[in-house]
């Protein structure tokens, strides 16, 4: 009799892990050895505990749906770390890439038929697959009962039977973006042809990785509206960033739909380029609009409209878009089946969209050869429509020409005001947004302005200065601050200071006095052009008088302004004596002024009597 079997041999025998010969020997031994049989039984009892985990595991329909939905999205692209290639290999790869690009560029048509599945943003919308067969109904009793009227059950399905019925739609037929400048808000209206089956249809809309506000979604058939009814929009439990519309259709086939929603992440800004004529009396101005797309969605051939003006928003769209669930869930996550949204809320939102639609509904005609930005006034806003269609890929920006105007009359003006700019002379270009200046058709939105001058005989441009402008309404004047000027100098000098006209109170203390200052201002124009200069002087008190014979304008209570013209490469000086009144002397000044007014009025009355 051979030795007893080890635990390993017993395991190998029990689970048929050994060679046939070994199995045979172990079997023979076990037939004869009670001890080993007992050990084997003990082991089997122990291994039978493994069966405690043997219960069947079934896949839920929800999990199946999720898997299928996931697979219906675009295939993931694995990005492999680039290995360091030898220089010749890199060069060969570069040549190959260039070659492929050239081939692609030469055959753009081949790309048309490509499946949109592989394209990120197009993953957004899926709709029920076309099932052109009518829904099963009681044909013999057609129309006889309300339940199966026209073959469509009155009661809608609780949820799509399976996500397997959802397929990717064709591309958008067209899309229109209305971008509001004042808020992070864009109204998107897109048209897509959905293939409906007769009966109940589920349309699924996904907004993962975008900044779409799901509370603003709206769907409307553009044809056969009397036969198609959008019943509800639901946000299925546990499925994030998607909503499903329930559509009752009495027709089967393709129907154009308009889907409307708000998104965040699209913005636009205006900027301008002005080129001064050599004599700086006129300017050529070009206005541009730059549209930036960081919405997570690519908008192909989008008609783009830009809104200037303030919009009152209750919510931040970006925040709404980033919500875990479309409508939030007070009290934490509640697992619930497809739950209809608050219809009143939806109607309210649809109302907002509808009013926005009415307000922004400007006719679009594509006629001109070159793209232009058309402008239209609305009640509170101004609407700029970029002609034609523009593709604005995600994370890209695009610059478009807004307007172009020649021979805009401008005034070059230099200003000196120590309280505002210290001892620097600041250069301004002044014009008006009106017909006289070849402008005035529309307001000019906020934006950056850069002014160039023509330098040298060849007319090459040199940067003169830049600034930002606020919204310029029609017929309003604007001054562009071009920054410090070095060729026009203003240097005030205090020539004399004295006090006079002291007043004393009962204790013989000084209660009032005058301060008299004599100033000399030297102005030098070293430019080859004549200039206008505006010098503003402040006195820190409203009680002041300037010496007789000085040409000035009272700018406000505490400031006087001198306006001068200087011929090219000339110098000039201005002298003035300013008396300021302090303490009790201010009352004398007031009294003197009142006396003067009274005398003037009396003189006027006398003249009237005569």
């Amino acid at each position, binding site marked *: 009799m051979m030795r007893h079997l080890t635990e390993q041999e017993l395991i190998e025998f029990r689970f048929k892990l050994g060679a046939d010969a070994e199995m045979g020997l172990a079997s023979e031994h076990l037939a004869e050895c009670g001890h080993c049989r007992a050990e084997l039984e003990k082991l089997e009892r122990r291994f039978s505990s*493994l069966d405690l*985990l043997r219960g069947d595991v079934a896949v839920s329909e929800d999990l*199946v749906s999720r898997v*299928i939905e996931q697979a219906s999205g675009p295939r993931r692209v694995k990005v492999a770390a680039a290995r360091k290639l030898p220089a010749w290999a890199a060069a060969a790869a570069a040549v190959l890439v260039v070659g492929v690009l050239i081939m692609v560029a030469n055959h753009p048509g081949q790309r048309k038929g490509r499946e949109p599945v592989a394209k990120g943003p197009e993953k957004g919308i899926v709709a029920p697959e076309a099932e052109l067969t009518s829904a099963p109904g009681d044909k013999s009793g057609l129309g006889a009962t309300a339940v199966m009227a026209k073959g469509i059950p009155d009661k809608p399905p609780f949820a799509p039977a399976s996500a397997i019925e959802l397929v990717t739609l064709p591309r958008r037929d067209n899309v229109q973006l209305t971008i509001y400048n004042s808020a992070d808000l864009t109204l998107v209206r897109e048209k897509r042809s959905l293939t409906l089956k007769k009966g109940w249809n589920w349309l699924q809309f996904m907004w993962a990785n975008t900044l779409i506000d799901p509370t603003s979604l709206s769907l409307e058939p553009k044809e056969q509206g009397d036969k198609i009814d959008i019943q509800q929009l639901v946000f299925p439990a546990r499925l994030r960033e998607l909503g499903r519309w329930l559509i009752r259709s009495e027709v089967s086939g393709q129907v154009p739909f308009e889907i409307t929603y708000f998104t965040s992440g699209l913005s636009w800004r205006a900027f301008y380029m002005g080129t001064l004529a050599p004599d700086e009396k006129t300017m050529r101005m070009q206005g541009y609009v730059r549209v930036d797309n960081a919405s997570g969605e690519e908008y192909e051939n989008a008609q783009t409209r830009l809104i200037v003006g303030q919009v009152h928003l209750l919510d931040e769209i970006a925040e709404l878009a980033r919500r875990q669930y479309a409508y939030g869930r007070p009290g934490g996550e509640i697992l619930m089946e497809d739950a209809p949204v608050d219809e009143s809320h939806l109607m309210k939102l649809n109302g907002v969209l509808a009013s926005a639609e009415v307000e922004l509904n400007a006719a679009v005609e594509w006629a001109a050869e070159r793209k232009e930005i058309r402008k239209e006034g609305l009640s509170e806003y101004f609407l700029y429509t970029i002609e034609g269609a523009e593709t604005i890929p995600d994370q890209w920006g695009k610059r478009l020409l807004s307007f172009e105007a020649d021979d805009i009359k401008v005034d070059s003006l230099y200003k000196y005001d120590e309280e505002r700019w210290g001892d620097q002379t600041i250069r301004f270009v002044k014009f008006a947004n009106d017909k006289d200046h070849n402008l005035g058709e529309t307001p000019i939105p906020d934006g950056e302005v850069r002014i160039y001058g023509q330098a040298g005989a060849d007319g090459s441009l040199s940067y003169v200065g830049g600034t930002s402008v606020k919204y310029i309404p029609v017929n309003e004047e604007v001054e562009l601050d071009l920054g410090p000027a070095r060729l026009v100098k203003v240097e005030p000098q205090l020539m004399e200071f004295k006090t006079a006209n002291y007043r004393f109170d009962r204790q013989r203390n000084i209660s009032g006095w005058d301060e008299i200052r004599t100033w000399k201002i030297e102005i030098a124009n070293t430019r080859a052009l004549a200039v206008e200069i505006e010098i503003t002087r402040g006195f820190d008190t409203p009680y002041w008088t300037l010496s007789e014979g000085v040409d000035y304008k009272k700018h406000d209570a505490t400031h006087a302004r001198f306006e001068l013209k200087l011929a090219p490469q000339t110098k000039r000086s201005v002298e003035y004596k300013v008396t300021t009144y302090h303490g009790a002397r201010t009352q004398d000044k007031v009294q003197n002024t009142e006396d003067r007014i009274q005398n003037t009025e009396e003189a006027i009355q006398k003249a009237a009597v005569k």
Partner: protein
Amino acid sequence: MLDSDKSLIDAHIGGDRRAFGELVRRHGDSILGYLVRMTGNREQAEDLFQETFQRVHEKGHTFRGERFKSWLFTIATRVAIDGLRKGRRQPVVSLNQSFGCGDGNCDELGAVTAADCCDPSQEAEMAEQKEQVRRAVDELPAKQRATLVLAYYQQLSYPEVAEILGCSTGTVKVQMSRALRTLAQRLPDVSGVAK
């Protein structure tokens, strides 16, 4: 007549979404069961289940017509081992975690009620033993665990397991033997306990 797995995967590659759904339904239970036993956690298993079929969706074109089930289990094994490697952590068992509710007989560790069993103390003891078994299986190295689950629970032959794991039948037997020897020391003696 049922479509073959090959024809379904071909149809899926051709854009037929129903074919993919059919594949998921046809093999879903066994794949999910495998992943639940590999991870010991239903939620994690469902995540890996989605990942597995996502890879099937993405790699469908690489299927050359060999046995689909083996190909599918190969993917699931890679996904499971990757998932276990990434999410290596102390196993946490929720009192409400269920390990198999598909048969309508949900056995939740903490939800032992008088109505579920004629003897509450026996039921509690069984739950405890089940947890002990789970812990013993969970503590096996990933490859040994995969071998055990495929061979014992999925009842695949050793050559089939070898094909899935991409190794020889001998290696599978060695892995199985090591796993069983370890389990023999750790498994509870369930004599007298109703299953």
